[in-house]
């Protein structure tokens, strides 16, 4: 499903002294099949934006008591065939196809067993009178747990609260992907994990990407994560999209990034340092790619 957003703006607690403008005229298109990154400082509006994509935050025009104002560019938000600016949109159907993993998703686990927790979405999204059979449910839960790298036989009957931090997070992710959403959005999926845990999360996202979920959108403020994994990325700053390009293009504009208070990924730093010493290297900002470029340089030079 293609995601098209135009002129999105959002203010929390409008009309109160706490009013905070979180999004300011955001326009962004995410193509089907992308592994899209959303970058930016804390408070730049990343989470607010992604919560629009499955209707957890509604556009004004999709709310019951809406009176259009004249002379305003109407915001547009389409996800596949769903028009999120329309009151009549079936938001539950939308949420079934656009999965959303919140920041620290392990804090939303609640059931007695891992099996029940993962099956929660499965039961909720079942159409009326078409509750999947016990076997079908078990099958779905099993494959979801396996693709996130957990052993079904081992964890299914445990309490989710007895697992380790990284395992809990993977259970939470399994609980979202179990309904096989076409788009999967993850808000800072690796935040608060150790380096190995981070690596495992990214690996499992690549396993999911493609067959399981066509499009993946991750929110992150880790430059390396974006550089290593994403096909394209958008940089948010103070509620606006200030850049939207491939990681290579984004990280080549060092001056602009540092003006925004953002760092470079390690590989880009190395490339810059080498270039400053007169060694020109052409590569994407991925570790593997960098190694290949350096090796070919070595062979060429030798």
């Amino acid at each position: 499903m293609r995601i098209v957003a135009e002129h999105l703006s959002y203010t929390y607690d409008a009309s109160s002294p706490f009013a905070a403008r979180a999004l300011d005229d955001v326009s962004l298109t995410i193509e089907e099949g992308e592994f899209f990154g959303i970058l930016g400082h804390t408070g730049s509006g990343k989470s607010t934006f992604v919560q629009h994509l499955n209707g957890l935050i509604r556009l004004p025009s999709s709310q019951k008591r809406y009176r259009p104002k004249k002379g305003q560019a109407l915001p547009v938000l389409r996800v596949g065939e769903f028009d999120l600016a329309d009151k009549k949109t079936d938001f539950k159907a939308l949420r079934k196809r656009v999965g959303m993993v919140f920041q620290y998703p392990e804090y939303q686990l609640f059931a007695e067993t891992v099996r029940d927790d993962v099956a929660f979405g499965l039961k909720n999204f079942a159409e009326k009178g078409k509750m999947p059979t016990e076997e079908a449910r078990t099958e779905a839960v099993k494959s979801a747990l396996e693709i996130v790298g957990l052993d079904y036989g081992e964890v299914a009957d445990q309490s989710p609260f007895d697992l380790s931090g990284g395992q809990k997070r993977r259970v939470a992710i399994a609980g979202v992907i179990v309904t096989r959403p076409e788009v999967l959005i993850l808000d800072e999926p690796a935040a608060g994990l150790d380096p190995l845990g981070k690596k495992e999360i990214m690996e499992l996202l690549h396993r999911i990407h493609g067959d399981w979920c066509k499009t993946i959108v991750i929110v992150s403020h880790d430059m390396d994560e974006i550089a290593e994994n994403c096909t394209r990325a958008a940089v948010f700053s103070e509620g606006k999209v200030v850049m939207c390009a491939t990681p290579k293009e984004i990280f080549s504009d060092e001056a602009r990034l540092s003006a925004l208070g953002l760092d470079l990924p390690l590989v880009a730093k190395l490339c810059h340092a080498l270039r400053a010493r007169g060694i020109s290297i052409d590569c994407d900002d991925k570790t593997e790619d960098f190694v290949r470029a350096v090796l070919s340089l070595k062979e060429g030079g030798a």
Partner: protein
Amino acid sequence: MKDVSFGQYYPIDSYVHRLDPRLKLLFLIVYIVCIFLANNFAALGVCAAVLIVTVIFSRVPIGKVFRAVRGVIVLIMITAVLNLFFYTGEGEPLWEWGILAIYREGIFFSVFLILRILLLVVCSSLLTYTTTPVALTDGIESLLTPLKWIKFPVHELALIMSIALRMIPALTEETERIKNAQKARGADFESGNPVKRIKAFIPILIPLLLSALRRADELGDAMDSRCYMGGKKRTKYKKLRFSWRDLIAASVGAALLAGVIVMRIFLGGIL
């Protein structure tokens, strides 16, 4: 935050905001006494005038003040209607039907009652609009200090109150976040029969409870690690101090109380 009508501080700067919280608490008590001492429209009118001036000086928008009234509108209506129909006055009733009758005095009495409740609600909500929860608990602690003589744990009580108040916004936000997370997994909180709806809240309540316990643990550890000890010899970050503003407000309170008592003695009656 979604309409939390508790601890609804309105963050601006005004004469009333700057008053000492202890004085505001005492003023509120005196004011409530005045409302109940006032037994005629003239005295109640004076009370109302004082409150209106206070609202103006507080610069809290009038819409906010009315929002506080909205919460008790049903209570006001019921009280007024009951009084209207069941008050037995002297002379001929204006209207009669079975045991229901409306007397001239009944009408006055109902209006009087409505006014009383309105003043009561507006002045107490004005206190929470103009005083941060922290200042409020500081004020309460300070006013309750004499109870320490009978070994009442005033400081601990105030600490519990301020922590509870401090946690309300955090837990509201947390609730909102968990609710959204479960909604993203297809949870439905709006439809179905009452039993179903209550059950739908389990996926919110359990994570919320766990999170509250975790926060409490962390806060306890943080306090321990900084060697927190309650009770004596603790100094305050913000020392409460009376100033000329408080003197003016105190005089207004005293004058109001005196005026209402005088009017009660010399005017009497409801009219």
